[in-house]
């Protein structure tokens, strides 16, 4: 059969809209496909998505296998996994990418188990390279690069003997390219392979909670660590953020101690951000935090401990008490003229 051996992306939709991470993955897939000299394709499940799927073309996806079924409008594990497995069996991509979201991390392992193929979770980088195993050299394999052991180690994982190679990637990790409004995608209808008795999960209620912050889109982030989590310091963090038109981020212990909600958390288990400016206030700069912000264009670190690791990656370091330093920054900005 004319298997194309393309790079495929699992398209996640929420409320009829394609998730940002899926578009980011289409861009990543295009870069990989460029090296492999193949195409980018996608699989989408749901209902009334035809128009929305056109957006995939703007990012370089040429074909989307679309399984339209009212019962697939909302995610449930078994029907989604079975459908994706069937599409993969039929079209035989060499690589399949999923968002490392609750949905992607639910469906991808089930798919990998059914296909007995390798799957690497939460990759931070994907490359193409060769790998030698038992005296056989495999060319053009997917190098799946990810942190392991609490972020202390970077591992490169390969799965050359099984097909496809599958990986999940968190939102914000891959760069979203400029959209090309003239890019076209062909929507290829696929039959739904699942029967009613595969729908084993009954959805009782879906509650959408508006996100309070949008860290990913922020150009400037003022971020509070445990050194800036008392009410006085936090108020100064908020004030500076308001003045600069910035969003407020934070480290994990600030979330764990209930000071700020989880959407504010930057880092390995939080959100990966790339703002123009990141102001780290009372953040020690542990590896798990840095994993989410080290690619900011400019980093200002404020910490009273001159040895704090955050200073190793900061472009500007200010040693001092956060309250004192933030007050000075606010004053300097207000009198900027």
């Amino acid at each position, binding site marked *: 059969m004319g298997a194309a051996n393309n790079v495929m992306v699992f398209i996640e939709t929420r409320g009829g809209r394609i998730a940002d991470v899926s578009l980011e993955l289409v861009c990543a897939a295009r870069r990989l496909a460029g090296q492999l000299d193949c195409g980018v394709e996608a699989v989408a499940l749901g209902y009334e998505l035809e128009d929305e799927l056109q957006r995939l073309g703007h990012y370089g996806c040429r074909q989307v296998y679309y399984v339209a079924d009212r019962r697939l409008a909302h995610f449930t*594990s078994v029907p989604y996994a079975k459908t994706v497995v069937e599409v993969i069996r039929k079209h035989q991509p060499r690589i399949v990418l999923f968002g490392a*979201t*609750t949905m992607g*991390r*639910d*469906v991808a*392992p*089930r798919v*990998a*188990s059914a296909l*007995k193929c*390798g*799957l*690497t*979770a*939460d990759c931070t980088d994907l490359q193409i390279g060769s*790998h030698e195993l038992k005296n056989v050299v495999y060319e053009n394999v997917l190098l799946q690069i990810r942190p*392991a*052991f*609490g972020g*202390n*180690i*970077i*591992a*490169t*994982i*390969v*799965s050359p003997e*099984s097909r496809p190679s599958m990986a999940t990637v968190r939102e914000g990790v891959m760069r979203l390219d400029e959209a090309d409004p003239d890019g076209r995608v062909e929507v290829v209808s696929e039959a739904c392979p699942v029967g009613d008795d595969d729908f*084993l*999960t*009954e*959805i*009782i*209620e*879906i*509650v959408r*909670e508006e*996100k309070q912050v949008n860290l990913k889109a922020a150009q*400037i982030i003022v971020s509070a660590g445990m050194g800036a989590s008392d009410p006085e310091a936090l108020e100064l963090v908020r004030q500076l953020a308001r003045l*600069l*038109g910035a969003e407020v981020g934070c480290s994990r212990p600030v979330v764990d101690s209930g000071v700020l909600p989880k959407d504010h958390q930057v880092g390995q288990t939080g959100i990966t951000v790339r703002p*123009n*400016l990141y102001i780290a206030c009372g953040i020690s700069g542990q*590896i798990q935090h840095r994993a989410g912000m080290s690619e900011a264009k400019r980093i200002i670190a404020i910490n009273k401990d001159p040895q704090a690791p955050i*200073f*190793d990656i*900061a472009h*500007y*370091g*200010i*040693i*001092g008490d956060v309250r004192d*330093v933030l007050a*000075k*920054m606010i*004053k*300097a900005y207000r*009198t*900027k003229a």
Partner: protein
Amino acid sequence: MGPRMIVTVKQVPDTHNITGEAMKEDGTVNRAALPAIFNPEDLNALEEALKIKDQLGGTVICISMGPPNAAEVLKECLYRGADDVVLVSDRRFAGADTLATSYALKCAIEKVGGYDLILCGRQAIDGDTAQVGPQIAEKLGINQLTCIAAVVQVDEQSITVKRSVEDGYEIVRSQFPVLLTVTAEANQPRTAKAKLVMSYKNIGKELCDDSYDEAYLSPGTCSAVSHIKEWNVESIGADPQQCGLSGSPTKVKKIQSVVLTACESKQIPNTEAGIAELMHELIAENIIG
């Protein structure tokens, strides 16, 4: 009668203080060099099972796959009120990725049999993959509910849970059998009971090929567990080809420990003048408006 529940628990290296030396040449972990702990979210999975047992009765059986030392986490399960524990241990399981791990655990679970609920932690902190749970469910051909933030309601046939998702949450229900992956949000794990610690502190392991001891689990006959059951490749009827390294499609190509690359950094004096100058510089470069 109450549901029959199986909880999978893993002993993991404490990932807080790990360096490159803790890794072996082949890219696998040198566990001996690291303090080993009970995987945190597996304690949440166990707690959820024990809570259901408190409410409805039933049995809680814990399974761990790992080296002989993993018996320690199974003892911890007994201290908290698990009814029985099984250690799946064999050199041939070594080097397993999530696929080979879920295969071995699936074989062990089938040998226990008759389950209503399987509870796993959402993820293990050594790899943070969150794959083993869903892969066990797929191999058993049962439904799964992942990333559980709370159990809303449970009865003799079904369970209703709250799942946290990116843009809010959902309340979903499944009939038994179903596999759940539980997050730290779901509960506060209970501590060990002194009485149980006393009775199980010196419990030993016993390699056994015999099938699962049903009589033990029938209500009324519940005497204390006399040993930790230890099962190997043969006792769970596993195909050795699908176990350990040979059953693992993913290979570690390379391991690097993370090194800090210090960047060009400018020390700003903590004075009004120093900070004003910094702010002006950022404005001049259009980084702030």
